[in-house]
């Protein structure tokens, strides 16, 4: 693989080094000289091991929790275009109780020596055509029928198809004959969005190379950059693929230049294709064989397998996705989990093509699945190492678990739905352990949970899957971020048993007198935009308390900006604002950058002088006024008039910072109420009377649940 040469390309590596330093907490002066010495990450990476699990300082690359899905496919659109064997098994639930091994002729994987194996991923910005390219590759290698209209075959979730995104990494083993040899090409499809980059990292850990897909029309976008660096840092071979060259406005030459400038990859290495039409896709497969090295592994050594993903099947238990670094595994082997030290007997091994296809064995360098009677996904810890019984090996480095960055309350719309929702959340988190769940309750909204997500899209996707796959409708409150407080009060330290506490719920916010300082999470954001919007975007970033770290042209009229953002400034509506003020042209991505000191305050909302507990908010001091005003205004719009005036106030301690008034009703009586009006009137009154029972009383003010929902809920439309 070709690595950008530090000394040759100061502009690009300046960005790179700063980005890495930002992540690692470094604050060097930038410039070329600093890079080599400063970069512990690169040092780690340069150990030269192909299966390195790099990146100690970055949650989103290492946050490698399971977001498995295969068992959670209820509610998928019925027609699945690919008539593959696994798909057939999917559509016939009764078959699921049999092992697929009973029905399939097993493949002999020993036919694929390590030198004929390639493990690769496709990475791209949203909508640049990653899944379409995957479809074509699957067709070309006969994994799926070419005559069928294949669309996003690997995107199996309804939410993936509807949103045109990939949420869950999928694996497909492709068999391809090239120059007289049969190759095993393991394609690991990855999610494109920032929230799911932990999936990307996890996938990359099993790869030696990536296809970096860039839209010939849109060019490099923020996620292209982020994903490139993930691959780059993992020392993978990067094959740039310029897609959609069939589009009218396609400008592949310009994109080549961008790639050369930003990633330092010579333009002649770019493969120009149209995945939609299939143009030049064959050369992509050939490049995979020619440019991506085979994994450096040893069949002769004892088994060492990395669990890089897992799913749960209610009939067969845990299905672990494994990459073999050393050795061989076959049915009947006794294996041990390095993490739990539990021993299992392997029931089935196989490859994914893209559906499960049993094999006799799996050999070092190969990627496949393994079923070994694990009853619970927690038994198949992502990042765990499996080895043969009585042949212990040094475990692989493993992964840190995913750290939720966005928290939100989730409540059933009707409390009678609580148990249904509870079981839906349990089932969904079974395959997505990156979601954290804490029970919570609100006087207004009843019993519910405080859920932690990896990001906003993750949260939306989770919510959408609850709705689509479990038919659950929920109230989701405005997301908050995990603040921290460094305690000074000895009593509190004793109580919490630690000096630094994380505050997930504003109700737990400790008073200023008891803390040394408050901390808020920050992220390093990358924005790529046509330069005409730069001014507006910089103003937006400034308004979000962001600090500019870097700015560079990626071509004549596209600019890449790097900012340090407080996370809470971008979790709600930053992306929407950015899109709307750039007419949709700017792209955005971010990565974790640790915590910084922040002047945080607790803001109360009062109704006629009484605190509304569910509306207590933690805000930055500079934002308290505008946040308070916004909440008061939203409340004003959603509180029905009552028989007396209602004062809505936002307060910091005893200081009122915003106020709105809902005037008393002066007239509220039906004008015409005669014989023909009585039925309708009584019906309305019945509804109102029933609604009254559900009102939450704050002092003498009746607050309908709707008002809370309007204030607390994520505003999907602005």
């Amino acid at each position, binding site marked *: 693989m070709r690595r950008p040469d530090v000394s040759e390309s100061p502009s690009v590596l300046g960005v790179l080094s700063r980005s890495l330093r930002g992540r690692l907490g470094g604050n060097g002066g930038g410039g070329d000289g600093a890079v080599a010495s400063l970069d512990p990450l690169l040092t780690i990476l340069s150990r030269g091991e192909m299966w390195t699990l790099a990146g100690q300082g970055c949650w989103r690359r290492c946050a490698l929790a399971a977001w498995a899905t295969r068992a959670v496919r209820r509610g998928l659109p019925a027609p699945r275009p690919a008539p593959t064997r696994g798909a057939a098994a999917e559509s016939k639930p009764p078959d699921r109780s049999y092992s697929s091994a009973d029905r399939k002729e097993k493949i002999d994987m020993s036919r694929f020596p390590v030198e004929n194996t390639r493990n690769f991923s496709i990475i791209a910005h949203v909508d640049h055509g990653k899944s379409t390219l995957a479809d074509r590759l699957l067709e070309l290698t006969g994994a799926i029928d070419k005559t069928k209209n294949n669309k996003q075959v690997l995107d199996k979730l309804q939410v993936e198809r509807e949103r045109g995104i990939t949420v869950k990494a999928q694996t497909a083993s492709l068999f391809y004959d090239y120059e007289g040899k049969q190759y095993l090409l393991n394609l690991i499809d990855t999610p494109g969005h920032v929230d799911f980059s932990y999936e990307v990292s996890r996938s990359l850990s099993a790869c030696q190379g990536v296809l970096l897909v860039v839209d010939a029309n849109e060019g490099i976008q923020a996620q292209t950059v982020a994903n490139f660096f993930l691959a780059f840092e993992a020392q993978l071979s990067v094959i740039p693929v310029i897609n959609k060259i069939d589009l009218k406005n396609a400008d592949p030459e310009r994109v080549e230049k961008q790639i050369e400038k930003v990633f330092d990859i010579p333009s002649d290495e770019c493969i120009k294709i149209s995945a939609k039409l299939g143009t030049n896709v064959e050369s992509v497969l050939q490049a995979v064989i020619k440019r991506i090295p085979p994994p450096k592994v040893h069949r002769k050594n004892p088994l060492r397998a990395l669990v890089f993903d897992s799913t749960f099947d209610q009939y067969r238990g845990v299905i672990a996705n494994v990459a073999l670094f050393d050795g061989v595994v076959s049915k009947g082997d006794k294996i041990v989990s390095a993490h739990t030290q539990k021993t299992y007997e392997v029931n089935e091994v196989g490859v994914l093509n893209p559906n499960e296809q049993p094999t006799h064995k799996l050999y070092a360098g190969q990627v496949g699945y393994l079923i070994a009677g694990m009853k619970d996904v927690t038994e198949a810890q992502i990042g765990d190492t499996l080895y043969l019984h009585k042949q212990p090996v040094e475990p692989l480095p493993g992964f840190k678990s995913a750290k939720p960055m966005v928290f939100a309350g989730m409540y059933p719309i009707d409390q009678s739905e609580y148990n249904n929702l509870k079981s839906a959340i349990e089932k969904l988190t079974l395959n997505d352990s990156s979601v954290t769940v804490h029970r919570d309750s609100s006087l207004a909204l009843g019993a519910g949970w405080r859920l932690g997500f990896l990001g906003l899209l993750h949260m939306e996707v989770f919510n959408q899957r609850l709705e689509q796959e479990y038919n659950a409708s929920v109230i989701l409150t405005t997301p908050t971020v995990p603040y921290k407080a460094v305690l000074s009060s000895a009593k509190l330290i004793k109580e919490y048993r630690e000096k630094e506490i994380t505050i997930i719920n504003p109700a737990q916010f400790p008073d200023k007198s008891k803390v040394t300082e408050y901390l808020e999470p920050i992220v390093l954001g990358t924005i790529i935009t046509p330069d005409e919007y730069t001014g507006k975007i910089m103003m937006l970033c400034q308004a979000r308390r962001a600090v500019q770290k870097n700015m560079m042209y990626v071509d004549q009229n596209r600019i890449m900006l790097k900012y340090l953002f407080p996370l809470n400034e971008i979790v709600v509506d930053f992306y929407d604002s950015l899109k709307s003020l750039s007419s949709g042209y700017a792209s955005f991505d971010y990565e974790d950058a640790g915590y910084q000191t922040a002047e945080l305050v607790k803001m109360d909302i009062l109704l006629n002088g009484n605190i509304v507990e569910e509306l207590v908010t933690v805000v930055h001091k500079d934002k308290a006024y505008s946040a308070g005003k916004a909440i008061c205004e939203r409340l004003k719009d959603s509180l029905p*008039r*009552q*028989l*007396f005036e209602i004062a809505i106030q936002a307060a910091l301690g005893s200081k009122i910072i915003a106020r709105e008034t809902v*005037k008393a*009703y*002066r*007239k*509220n*009586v*039906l*004008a*015409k*109420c*005669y*014989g*023909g009006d*009585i*039925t309708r*009137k*009584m019906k309305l*009154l*019945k509804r*109102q*009377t029933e*609604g*009254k*029972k559900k009102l939450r009383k704050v002092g*003498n003010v009746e607050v309908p649940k709707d008002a809370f929902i309007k204030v607390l809920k994520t505003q999907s439309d602005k």
Partner: protein
Amino acid sequence: MRKDGRAAAVSAPVPSRWRCGPEPSRRRSDTGRGHAAPFLPPGRPTRPGSAHTGRFALGSSRSRVLARAPGRPATAGGTALRGVQARGWVKAGKMAQRRRLAEDAGGPRGPTPGSQRAALYVHWPYCEKRCSYCNFNKYIPRGVDEAAMRRCLVTEAQTLLQLSGVRRVESVFFGGGTPSLASPHTVAAVLEAVAQATHLPADSEVTLEANPTSAPSSRLAAFRAAGVNRLSIGLQSLDDTELQLLGRTHSASEALQMLAEARRHFPGRVSVDLMLGLPAQHVGPWLGQLRKLLRLCDDHVSLYQLSLERGTALFTQVQQGALPAPDPELAAEMYQEGRAVLREAGFRQYEVSNFARNGALSTHNWTYWQCGQYLGVGPGAHGRFIPQGAGGHTREARIQTLEPDSWMKEVTLFGHGTRRRVPLGELALLEEVLAMGLRTDVGITHQHWQQFEPQLTLWDLFVADKEVQELLEQGLLLLDHRGLRCSWEGLAVLDSMLPTLLSRLQEAWQQRTPSPVPGG
């Protein structure tokens, strides 16, 4: 029943058509307590009438009507009646005009028990033109087969009267639609049918809704001759621009001319409607209209705040931004100022939107607010009564088929066009007593409440409730030896208080010790 009626009619010739209908002989023992008789005979299974399908058999009502024509053999033809009819209407009209209502409208009136009395609403579904604010059940016809309509109204009135077992009709209201577009003959025919089927006292209030353009002087006289003794004029505004906005066919001057004519024909018995809270309407000019109207009007005024109803042209215009949305604050101010102006002019606000002086309250509408029985005749008409004639013991809310042609078909086939019957449970009826009664200035007297609920008193219900106490303390609601009622301020915000009162009632109803059910 039918047999009784016929026998009575034949055996009792009487001088005046309306008065002549002798009180049908009472089969059930009368309590003799007049209005105090409960609407719900205790201890009967609360099931709707026998007709499972919502239809019920109808005897040959036509022959029955004829049989009851005074002094005539049962087979006499209609034409022979004309002369008698004319004389009868004139006399009845005069009688009715002489009548003045007592100040406490709704008080005891005659010995008939509540379950045997009813008000009668007759719906004329046609209009010349669609008003921009109206979402009522009305149709703009190409041509009305009035004879057919008349036949059907008469038939349905007869059917429902028989079904209800009502012996006395205390008021008739011709609403619509634009009933003043109907011919006086139609009005007369319905009244005649009522008078023949039951007792329609000479002083019964008979109101006709009229639009200024549809009722020239000659027609007013004819309506009066037909038995109408009260006129309600949809004047709506004295501003031509506003009238246009409302899609009315008349001008302000036409309306005032009509008002003057009406007062000549129905002195002391004319009501006018005035709307408030129109888009772009302001308080000052509107009060000017009200003051002008007060110089010209009779003894009854209704003030209606415009409510934008979905599906109307006005709603769409406001929705699309072609018109400003009415300002509720301004409407509230108009209402408050208007009430005060009317009070100064000697009007009693006897209901949320209704004002009368010299005791000229509408008894018909009062029946609604007192939860008396009423029958609804005509397409889409609503009724609330016990179908005693069919053996029923529970009050039902009934709705007739909406669309005139379907309704007529049903009436022709089945004698009535009842589309929906919903039995009203005891609690539901009490809720109506509360919600309707509080619209009046008298409110709910202890006596009145006791007629419907002899066990739980108003005191029991409300005196200990914290939220009700707050309303009492705020001076919005009054609970004293007379009963429960809204204050002047409270009346304007009644709909904000009702959920509190109703939930208290529901709570108390659930907690009450279940009363023994006599007679099972």
